[in-house]
């Protein structure tokens, strides 16, 4: 016998559940269009339908030329960050019925558009690379030993480890928009991940801090928390940057050492 819960379970395919939504989608092919424009699509939605589902449905059923980058569809790969109703979000992690009607979908602001919702990510990857986001231990462990990390130290970097390089935070950051030498929030959060890792050792930690203290480094953060607000993984790059800035200044204040 079916339980009450089972009988009440919503079925995505039932007609009663269906509603329509309007999507206003940014369209632009730089080689063909004089300027970008918005195209309006009406689609039938279902409970739990994501903006990515909607865009794929449009591509499959209405306009096969609509271009969007996506892969995992589960907020893990970071490839489908777009600008939905004025906020940087992952299309696969945003439900159509949550964001209001119409749903306006644009590419990530401050990134160059390759086609429709697909943006050029190379400049973002260069920023990420500028903070040397790889493990650089001061010393090799003894033969047969491992690089050991204490559970407390691991917990310290837990908060920033979830970054999926989607670029949402960097797109939302105003200093990153105007200052190409500023690594931006994603890169600095990644720098924090290594800066805090005790396995690298004191020498590397100091070198990293010195590098981040460059004239267009950590001190450029305006503490606006835009990056923190839009991060789909709940990371707060602002807090990581502020912690590094405070550490750097504290080291300067201890000038007698």
């Amino acid at each position, binding site marked *: 016998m079916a339980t009450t819960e089972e009988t009440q379970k919503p079925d995505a395919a039932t007609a009663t559940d269906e509603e329509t939504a309007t999507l206003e989608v940014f369209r632009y092919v730089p080689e063909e269009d004089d300027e970008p424009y918005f195209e309006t699509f009406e689609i039938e939605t279902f409970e739990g339908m994501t903006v990515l589902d909607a865009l794929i449905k449009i591509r499959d059923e209405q306009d096969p030329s609509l271009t969007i980058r996506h892969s995992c569809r589960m907020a893990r790969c970071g490839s489908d960050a777009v600008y939905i109703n004025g906020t940087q979000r992952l299309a696969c992690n945003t439900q159509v019925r949550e964001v209001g009607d119409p749903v306006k979908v644009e590419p990530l602001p401050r990134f160059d558009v390759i086609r429709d919702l697909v943006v050029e990510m190379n400049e973002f990857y260069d920023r990420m690379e500028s903070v040397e986001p790889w493990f650089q231990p001061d010393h090799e462990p003894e033969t047969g030993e491992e690089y050991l990390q204490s559970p407390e130290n691991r917990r310290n970097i837990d908060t920033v480890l979830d970054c999926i390089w989607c670029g949402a935070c960097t797109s939302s950051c105003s200093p990153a928009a105007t200052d190409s030498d500023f*690594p931006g929030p994603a890169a600095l959060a990644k720098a924090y991940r290594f800066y805090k890792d005790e396995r690298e050792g004191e020498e590397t930690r100091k070198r990293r801090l010195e*590098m981040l*203290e460059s*004239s267009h*480094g950590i001190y450029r953060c305006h503490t606006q928390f835009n990056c923190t607000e839009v991060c789909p993984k709940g990371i707060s790059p602002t807090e990581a940057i502020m912690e590094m800035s405070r550490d750097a200044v504290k080291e300067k204040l201890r000038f007698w050492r």
Partner: protein
Amino acid sequence: MSTKPSKTAGWNWFLQRATGVALVVLLGFHFAVEHFIVGAHHITAENTVERITHGLIQGDHVLGQITINMPAFLYQASAILLLAFSIFHGMYGVYNILMEQDALKKYRQPLKYFFIVFSIALFIQGVLIFLAFFEPFWEIYDPR
């Protein structure tokens, strides 16, 4: 990222924040005195001289009739610090915003020296006005 190490960026960042906090206090005091105790419409040369030279704050405005006789040096220090901190905080803030524009980075040196010289000139101007309230210096600065 520009990896050119900076010896001053950290200190400047710290000073920008420290002066920001200090300005909240100093501007709060300034507004309380000028706008809530004395009242902008009731500021005269005489009562300004009283405040600056004797620390005597008197008024009958938003907060009712109030008389505060604070040590003169405290009032004078608050005025000079307000002048210095607001110049540093404002000028360094604007300089930084300009330096965050890629198109302006090539003018970094001239802009830096312009802001340093302009800030010092503003501070000297402010100090001259301040000194003009004290008798031996009356002649230094005469806005007429």
